[in-house]
Every structure is written in structure tokens, then in C-alpha cells.
């Protein structure tokens, strides 16, 4: 039985992630088209659904060109490291009540720890490809991810303080009588906003995509990558967005639990009828849609503006928010 688990779970996860990756690329293009009043991909398959499949095929068949004066081993290692991280991150994520690989008792810390390691693959890629643009992009990304981790961690800490647990299943269980974003008052709303900003920054997405700012750095840290190696970086970015949005859903939107309104039994029963994984994925894609919305709405920040936003605004705000939340708990304002 355990051997079967060891074989089955990786296959399911790989299948799930490749589908999610392809779907997110398609979704990005469709959302972008919607924002810019265009149609978007519409040729391959119904509504252009198979566009990403065709693109992936093209990427697989492309020549894997690598430049001459690179560090061969590290250059090839970096995309693999980048793609491993989302697979590790999925371990404590609860897709429904029983769909969880390992309910480790510090699940939230586990995700923050491993998501911060994605910067190492970016730094390796930037250094190994022996290119000034890659190097500058990698260093920018390092500065960005390290600084935004701080306020992201503090935002998560607010929820940990309210639910009094680091275990994913207990955090979800603490929201059985109402999601934190609804019953948590001001501190949770502030921390949700901070969390959204930090996950956008940690995934290197616009308006924080200084690592690959096309107009200044060609393509940033993956300038020298082509074919499937580039595709792995691309896929890793989207999978990181998915995992961090899933963590956001678990922390603020009640995980896999259905939406309930107090004193409306019939409405709640109808909501209960929808299976938990569908609720989970619906909420995750809602958050991903908001992140894509950011990308096509805000202009890109300069590097000094980006660091100022973190150190002069977000970090003090999240510290104050933590203290405010603590006072509310002490005054018995927030019911677990």
C-alpha cells in the first residue's frame, strides 16, 4: 500500500502541475487580452484552449542552445532547482480535507522556508550564464525576494497568531465558523493586502518584474536560456504563483471550506453540496486572477522605489499591524 502511494502521488502531482501550468499560461493570455480589449489566442482548439499545448510542443522540439563561456554544470542545474521547489512546496498544501500529502506541524513555516529558496536557483542561473544582463537581473531578484520575504512572513504571522497554530489543517479548522478575512476585522484585511503584494513580488511578476525587465535587461536572469530550459523557469514561476495563492487561500479564505452565510440554512446546504476541491481551486484561481490583474494594470516600479516600498512602508506597516492584532486578541475582540 505504501509503495503504491510512493508511485501514485508523484504521478498525480506531476500531472496536476503540468495541467495547472498550461492552464495558467492560457489564462494569463486570455486575461491580458480581456484587459487590453483584444481576443487573445483563439486558433488552436476551441477558444484557443490548446494554444499552450502547441507552444509546449514547440519548446520541447527547439534546439537547446547554450553559449560558449558558461559554467556548464550550474547552467544546467539552475532550471532543475527552480522546478523542484514548487514540487516540494506542495507537500503541506491541503487540497481538501483528506487530500494532503504530509500535514507537518509547522506547515506554514515549511512553505515560507522553501519558497525563499527559489532565489538560489535564480542567482545560480544569473551567475552561470556569464552575461551582464543575467547577473544584474539575478542580483536584483535576490535583493527583492529577501526584502519582501520579511513583510510576507509578518503578514502570515498575523494569521498564525489568530489561529494559534502553524499546522495547515488546524488553521483551516479555525475558520470553520467564518473565514479569517471576514471575521478578522482590520488586521487581517491589512495583512491580506500585504500578503498579496509580497507574493506578487516574490514570484517576480509585474509590477515587480525587475529581474526580467525587458526594456533594460533583455530578459534578466534567463537571457541565455532557450528551449525547454527556459520553459522550466517559466513553468516554475507559474507554479510558484499557484502554490503561494493556495497558501493565501488556506490562510485567509478558509482553505477548502465552502462559503457560508450565518442564519441561512438552505443557502449553506447548497454551498455544502459543491465538493471541497472545487471550492479550493475556485478560490485559488480567484487570487491568481487578482495577481494577473495587477500585472496588466500597474506600471513597473524602479528598483529604488521597490526597495523603498518594502523597507519604508510595508515592513513598518506589517509590524504595527501585528501589534494591533495582538491588542485585539488581548481585548477578546477576535474569536477563534
Amino acid at each position, binding site marked *: 500500500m505504501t509503495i503504491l502511494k510512493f508511485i501514485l502521488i508523484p504521478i498525480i502531482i506531476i500531472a496536476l502541475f503540468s495541467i495547472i501550468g498550461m492552464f495558467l499560461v492560457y489564462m494569463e493570455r486570455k486575461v491580458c487580452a480581456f484587459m487590453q480589449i483584444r481576443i487573445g489566442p483563439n486558433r488552436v482548439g476551441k477558444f484557443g484552449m490548446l494554444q499552450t499545448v502547441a507552444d509546449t510542443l514547440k519548446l520541447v522540439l527547439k534546439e537547446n542552445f547554450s553559449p560558449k563561456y558558461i559554467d556548464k554544470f*550550474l547552467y544546467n542545474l539552475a532550471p532543475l532547482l527552480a522546478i523542484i521547489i514548487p514540487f516540494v512546496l506542495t507537500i503541506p498544501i491541503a487540497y481538501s480535507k483528506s487530500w494532503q500529502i504530509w500535514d507537518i506541524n509547522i506547515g506554514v*513555516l515549511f512553505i515560507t*522556508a522553501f519558497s525563499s*529558496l527559489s532565489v538560489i536557483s535564480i542567482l545560480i542561473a544569473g551567475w552561470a550564464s556569464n552575461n551582464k544582463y543575467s547577473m544584474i537581473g539575478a*542580483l536584483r531578484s535576490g535583493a527583492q525576494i529577501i526584502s519582501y520575504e520579511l513583510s510576507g512572513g509578518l503578514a502570515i504571522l498575523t494569521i498564525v497568531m489568530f489561529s494559534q497554530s502553524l499546522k495547515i489543517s488546524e488553521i483551516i479548522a479555525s475558520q470553520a465558523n467564518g473565514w479569517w478575512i471576514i471575521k478578522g476585522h482590520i488586521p487581517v484585511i491589512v495583512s491580506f493586502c500585504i500578503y498579496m503584494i509580497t507574493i506578487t513580488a516574490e514570484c517576480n511578476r509585474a509590477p515587480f518584474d525587475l529581474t526580467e525587465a525587458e526594456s533594460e535587461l533583455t530578459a534578466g536572469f534567463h537571457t541565455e536560456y532557450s528551449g525547454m530550459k527556459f520553459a522550466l523557469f517559466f513553468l516554475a514561476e507559474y507554479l510558484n504563483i499557484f502554490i503561494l495563492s493556495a497558501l493565501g487561500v488556506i490562510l485567509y479564505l478558509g482553505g477548502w471550506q465552502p462559503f457560508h452565510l450565518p442564519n441561512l440554512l438552505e443557502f449553506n446546504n447548497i454551498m455544502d453540496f459543491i465538493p471541497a476541491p472545487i471550492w479550493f481551486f475556485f478560490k485559488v484561481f480567484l487570487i491568481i486572477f487578482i495577481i494577473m490583474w495587477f500585472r496588466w494594470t500597474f506600471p513597473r516600479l524602479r528598483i529604488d522605489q521597490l526597495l523603498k516600498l518594502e523597507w519604508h512602508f510595508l515592513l513598518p506597516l506589517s509590524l504595527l499591524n501585528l501589534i494591533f492584532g495582538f491588542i485585539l486578541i488581548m481585548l477578546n475582540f477576535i474569536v477563534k
Partner: protein
Amino acid sequence: MTPQAILFCILAIIAIVAAIMVIIQKNPIKSILWLLVVFFALSAIYFSLNAQFLAIINLIVYAGAIMVLFLFVLMLINFKSLETIQKKYRFVFYAVVIVCGVLTLLMLLINQTQSLQKVSILNDSNNVGLIENLGKTLYLDYGVPFELTSILFLTAIIGAVLLSKIKKIEI
């Protein structure tokens, strides 16, 4: 040997080999990356001892933050000038003697101390390393030393900030 002991042996060998690679690599970036492997192996050992919190904190603090800062400094330094430094074998003999002496001393001390021999982490540690017990021990039993350590860290941080500020004023 129990499976846990075999796992420990494998992880320990990985850690030691990676630590040796840190020293013998010529390229500073590569030796830093080997150090990363050491931290990962140590974290895996903590995990196998059910000290999950320690393992994750080891990853966040060392592999995440400090490692990236190391990489930063090395990437910003032009270390082509470092490579031209001639190898000096003068101190190798003294270094070997000192390290071996300290190691033997440590081994003798550990052999003699009875309280260390009795502690067997592998057997009765189902929830020693879990965050709740760790927090209780740190804040209830060792509250004062813990707070003193945090003040020490704060002093170091303020000192670093002050150092950078003083230089700016002088320039």
C-alpha cells in the same frame, strides 16, 4: 542497524563530503554552493530526528538568508583578483596539528561526560523538537538567557547600522 541509523549515516556522509568540497574548491561561488549542500544535509538530519522546527529555521536562516547574502558579496567582488593569490602551504602543518588536537580533546571530553552519553535523541524523542515544546522550554525554563541573547543580537544589528552611517558622515 535501524533504518533511521542508515539514513543518518547517509546524510552524515553527504554533509562531510560537501564540507570537504567547500574547502577544496578553487572557485568561491562553487564552494558557497557546496556549503548550501551541507546545510541541506544538516536540515535533513534534523528532520529525521523529528526536530522539524529546527530543520526549517536552519533552512530559512542559513540556506535562505545568510547564503544569499554570501552569494551577493561574492558576485559583487571581482574575484579574478582572488584567484591569482599564491597558495601558501606554510600554515598547513600548524593548522592540521591544532585541529587534530582540538578534536581529540573534544572526543575525550565527550567520552568522559556521563550526562551526554545518557542522552539518546534517536529513541525517546517523539515530540521533543516540536515547536510547542521548544517554545515552552525557551520561554519558561530559559526565559532570561533567551531574552539576553536577543538583546545581544539587537546590539549587533544596531552596531552594523551605526557603522554604515558613520562612514557616510565622514565621506
